[in-house]
């Protein structure tokens, strides 16, 4: 697909060069204690996670975030009340520190009210792409300082959850396809079918198949990407997930009493939809994917693949300028390849250094 995308996976393969003979240790040494050391260090430093939710208004994005992290990240807006739909797309970020069993997580959620709400939604993805690229740019600037900070604050978007409206129709809408195509090259995207309680189980399955077919037709690689599967275990695990993408989710932040238990759910006249019940919706799958199993992987792919791609593009871009190469070349290495023509979204990136008129659309 993308010629600049690194084919090897983020984690290195086990080295097996003949120069490193493997030695048999005759007894216990204690090397494995390094794992504990790692854990202690990680707990002390804390974790960071940045998630972005994209979708039209009324699809339940804020509610979903609240449900995921079981706390009031935002006041979920009821339809008809509250803030009117913004005229243009604005991005709002909010950061919280949550802690569980000694593990501190600094969570940043970025919402995109106004996405896809206008009559003319042309280029409505530009502000979002601009925001994502700006976070990469910030990180890059911190990284190339002479005197660097010990720990560079990571504001890069690790995961983008895209809410597909539950039309149940044959295919994704053109807006969805355009957006997903552009975004999948820059960030990890997890599409979900929002408000899935309006679809029956069969409708859900059919819709899901069609969406998967659409994604394949348009060569959109959502997370977990096939090309980053490292070994057979990963592949098996990820194929199971890929089977179920996009998840049909329901969000709820009110608790109700069901069979004596207190569960999160939506109460309707015909029943209570339990959010955490696998028979009712696939919210647990989404939660497990995002938080319990693949969080570190999301961060790794963002850092090792998307950020590196951005960096390569950014540093190569200066080659196009007549003023000369834009990077330090301390060693006589191979000359950096000229910026290969990538998909058109790249040309819409924000760049502070060029003096030409870039598309500063925000």
């Amino acid at each position, binding site marked *: 697909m993308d010629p600049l995308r690194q084919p*090897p996976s983020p*984690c*290195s393969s*086990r*080295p097996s060069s003949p*120069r*490193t*003979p*493997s*030695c048999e*240790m005759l007894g*216990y*040494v*204690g*090397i*494995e*204690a*390094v794992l504990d*050391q*790692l*854990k*202690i260090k990680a707990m002390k430093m804390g974790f960071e996670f940045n998630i972005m939710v994209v979708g039209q208004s009324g699809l339940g994005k804020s509610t979903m975030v609240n449900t995921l*992290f*079981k*706390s009031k990240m935002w006041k979920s807006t009821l339809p008809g009340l509250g803030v009117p739909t913004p005229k243009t797309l604005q*991005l709002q970020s*909010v*950061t*919280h*520190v*949550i*802690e*569980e*069993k000694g*593990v501190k997580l600094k969570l940043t959620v*970025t919402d995109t009210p106004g996405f896809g709400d206008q009559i003319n939604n042309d280029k409505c993805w530009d502000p979002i792409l*601009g925001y994502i690229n700006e976070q990469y740019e910030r990180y890059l*600037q911190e990284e*190339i*300082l*002479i*005197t*660097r900070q*010990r720990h560079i604050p990571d504001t890069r978007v690790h995961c983008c959850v895209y809410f597909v409206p539950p039309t149940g129709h044959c295919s994704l809408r053109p807006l969805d396809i355009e957006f997903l195509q552009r975004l999948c090259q820059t960030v990890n995207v997890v599409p979900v079918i929002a408000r899935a309680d309006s679809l029956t189980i069969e409708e859900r399955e059919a819709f899901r198949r069609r969406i998967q077919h659409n994604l394949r037709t348009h060569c959109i690689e959502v997370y977990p990407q096939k090309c980053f599967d*490292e070994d057979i275990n990963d592949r098996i695990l990820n194929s199971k997930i890929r089977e179920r993408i996009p998840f049909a989710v329901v969000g709820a932040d009110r608790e109700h009493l069901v069979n004596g238990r207190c569960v999160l759910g939506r109460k309707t006249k015909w029943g209570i939809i339990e959010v955490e019940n696998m028979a009712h919706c696939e919210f647990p799958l989404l*939660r497990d994917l995002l*938080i319990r199993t693949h*969080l*570190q992987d999301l961060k790794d792919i963002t850092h090792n693949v998307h950020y*590196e791609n951005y960096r*390569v593009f950014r540093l*190569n871009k200066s080659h196009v300028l007549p*003023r*000369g*190469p834009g*990077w*330090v*070349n301390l060693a006589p*290495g191979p000359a950096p390849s000229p910026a290969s023509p990538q998909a058109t979204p790249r040309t819409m990136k924000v760049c502070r*250094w060029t003096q030409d008129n870039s598309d500063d659309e925000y």
Partner: protein
Amino acid sequence: MASEVARHLLFQSHMAAKTAGMPSQLPDSEQNQKKDNTRSLTMSGHVGFESLPDQLVNRSIQQGFCFNILCVGETGIGKSTLIDTLFNTNFEDHESSHFYPHVRLKAQTYELQESNVHLKLTIVNTVGFGDQINKEESYQPIVDYIDAQFEAYLQEELKIKRSLFNYHDSRIHVCLYFISPTGHSLKTLDLLTMKSLDSKVNIIPVIAKADAISKTELQKFKIKLMSELVSNGVQIYQFPTDDETIAKINASMNGHLPFAVVGSMDEVKVGNKMVKARQYPWGIVQVENENHCDFVKLREMLLCTNMEDLRDQTHTRHYELYRRCKLEELGFTDVGPEHEPLSLQETYEAKRHEFYGERQRKEEEMKQTFVQRVKEKEAMLKEAERELQAKFEHLKRVHQEERIKLEEKRRLLEEEIIAFSKKKATSEIHQNQSFMVPGSSLRKDKDRKKLSNAQVLEGGSGVGEALRAGSLSSRARPVLQR
């Protein structure tokens, strides 16, 4: 679960009380002014991100670890044996000779595995350290090697297309400095070497072959060594004491530095166990006995407790220092002359402009010089040509003049000849007249005829002139006779 929630709520209520005055959320986050209001949030249920450290650990296990140890010490002090004992395996067999002319560094990489941890271990040995007669250059190869590893990492990091996660990190994480057990003090070479290495690598000094010192001497020796190091400003690695779980043990270990170690892979039967030990006629020195030597402490500190911290320090302190110095050396700064923040790229482009301009200037200069030289050469040649021309003309003139002169002379000569021959003729005539009768006038006429013919034949206006200039008689006669 509920109790944990309760505990959280209690904790959070404290936090909430503190942050009660904060405004409600929904800040504006225009791209450049993202307000970071990190408020603590309570969760009403179990979310599940406590598995995050495990996810991180799993990723690290998949990636594998790498650890690089540098052993500096004199030949024969027991470096290889100690490493063998530390890792409980036999790495290498042969001993090195004492006769190397320079200090070299030899690096060997091994793969070790313990349960599910894969460790790529690199041991770097100094070969020939302290063997030379003149030890001035002894520490330089070591410093160069460490810098070379940093340089390689820096190169990789600065590449445009880089693969840092695949990169085999060869930077030295710890330097074990072996001090010989003299019992007195540090050698000058040791001090010098440690001083030049302390800002580049974590140094852990160890007293090698500690079974050569008695316990009391050892205590004094340690105190002496530490005071010398402190007074000379050598910064050795201090085990970190900021995390509560390991602070106490690290602090106590800090007091035992430098560790007095004994290395041995030979097994000796003690009691009813086989232990690693060295057997002497007067007793057995057990390697893993804490009363005998500090080997266990070293292994504990180096591998079990602080391996990660050593790697961290190398990356965040020593490598950053190297990077900063190297980039500043090249002229990059973060702050420009007006104290506005500069970026690496701007600086580089500015420099490039500078160099480019300079190159242009030099090219111009060269062009100018070239043109100048050509002109000069041309002028010279023209000058030469003119000179030649002048000479030629001059010579021609001279030639002409000479020719005229010669002509003159010739004319004069001819005139003289004519005059002379005339005189001769007249004198002969007179002679003949005085001796002969008048009948011989025919003969005289003939003579005269001969003469006049000769004269006519001699030709030229000169003759004519001569005749005209001559007497009447000679003139008249040829007219008559013709």
